[in-house]
């Protein structure tokens, strides 16, 4: 075990960690917001919006993320209206292309996860809320969303972990995050095994932290399902 090499590799790779984290946080946030919009369209009842949401979800779940990323990175520049628009300085950046395509992809999956959570809400509890005069956004905010989110959380934590791993694909559109730096290191040193092992360890630690955080959130949100503390028992 060449610990000197391993440790210098780790240091090199960890320098790229902020980029990985930036990709992850930006795409999860943007994707989550898009997913909320998609779910609103999908469950709204307006046939055009429902159709659009269904088509969007189908396209972004049904095609490889890598191809979506290539289409955004290489494809957008082929359209004159984009190249000459005020957005071009932003859209030509590899980081922005990566975040955009990651967000668009996760929005499709997350929307379906949220929709599953909404479907699991008991209609009886919704009726009880309506019967006291709650409706619209108040009903969603106070009753529907909290219950739906609790149902969706386990599936959503899976999606978050997948997103963290998907940031590795950004290396193929010239973003220097952990996997990209690892590949460059291998091309210099030819020591594939050790370098990728270090990269894998970094992702494992990141995902461990994410899953622990999700687990804590789940624990905090599921007090109503656990046994009553003995102090409250009759």
């Amino acid at each position, binding site marked *: 075990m060449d610990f000197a090499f391993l440790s210098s590799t780790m240091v090199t790779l960890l320098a790229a960690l902020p980029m990985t984290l930036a990709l992850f946080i930006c795409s999860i946030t943007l994707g989550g917001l898009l997913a909320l919009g998609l779910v609103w369209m999908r469950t709204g009842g307006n046939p055009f919006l429902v159709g659009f949401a269904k088509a969007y979800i189908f396209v972004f779940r049904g095609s490889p993320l890598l191809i979506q990323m290539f289409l955004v990175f290489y494809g957008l520049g082929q359209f004159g209206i984009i190249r000459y628009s005020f957005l071009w300085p932003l859209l030509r950046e590899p980081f922005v292309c990566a975040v955009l395509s990651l967000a668009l992809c996760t929005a499709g999956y997350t929307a379906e996860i949220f929709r599953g959570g909404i479907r699991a809400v008991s209609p009886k509890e919704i009726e009880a809320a309506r019967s*006291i005069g709650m409706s619209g956004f108040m009903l969603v905010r106070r009753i529907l969303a909290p219950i739906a989110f609790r149902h969706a959380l386990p599936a959503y934590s899976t999606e978050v972990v997948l997103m963290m791993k998907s940031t590795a694909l950004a290396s193929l559109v010239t973003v220097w995050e952990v996997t990209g730096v690892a590949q460059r290191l291998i091309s210099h040193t030819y020591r594939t095994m050790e370098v990728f092992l270090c990269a894998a360890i970094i992702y494992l630690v990141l995902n461990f932290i994410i899953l622990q955080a999700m687990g804590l959130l789940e624990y905090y949100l599921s007090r109503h399902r656990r046994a009553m503390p003995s102090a409250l028992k009759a």
Partner: protein
Amino acid sequence: MPGVNRLLVNNIRKSFGTHEVLRGISLDARDGDVISLLGASGSGKSTFLRCINLLEIANDGEIWVDGEQIRMIHKNGKSRPESARQVDRIRSELGMVFQSFNLWSHMTILQNVIEGPIHVLKRPRVEAIAEAEALLEKVGIADKRHAYPAHLSGGQQQRAAIARALAMKPKVMLFDEPTSALDPELVGEVLRVMRALAEEGMTMLVVTHEMSFARNVSNRVVFMREGLIDSSGTPDEMFGGTGSPAFRQFIGHFGS
């Protein structure tokens, strides 16, 4: 005050597809009336109750709550309320207690009871909590206020649901088979709470199979059959042998 028409319902019709469940029901409830709605399953009792607070939309008919008519639009054979805000406001004046309690499972009992007053009635939190605790005391589950619904027995959950409805200070309470989902030994505690409410003068419309409640607590009994009101009258009139043949046959199933 006695004599005021709290609820007036005229000629409600409701169909699900081609099946006409309500074929013209009219009812009036004055202040302090406790009306028991009896009938076989399928007779439309629960549907009728749900039409009053618009959980079901009637195809025809008018509803007045405390003199205010719920404005409806009837177009192309479809009906809908004219104003969602009016519907919300009227619903907040009608308390409903459900057969399956329908408590919000992710909130404690106290949170269930204060939810309406704080977010719908916009009462200050401190006041809402004080009143909620008084109500929970009244229905006898004050010690369970920080427990979750899953930790309570059916009877306790239903009493919590009644407290939740009362917290909105409703003009009329609608009970949809409140004890039908309870074990027999828990039915009594809920009926006691309902009786206490009736004696305080709450206007109540109760769909029930509990004949003891219908006979002893309500001041009017309405018997529904196949979407229409078959007969109605005071408990003495109905149970005293002068009820219609259909009604006598119906209560024959319940023993004496």
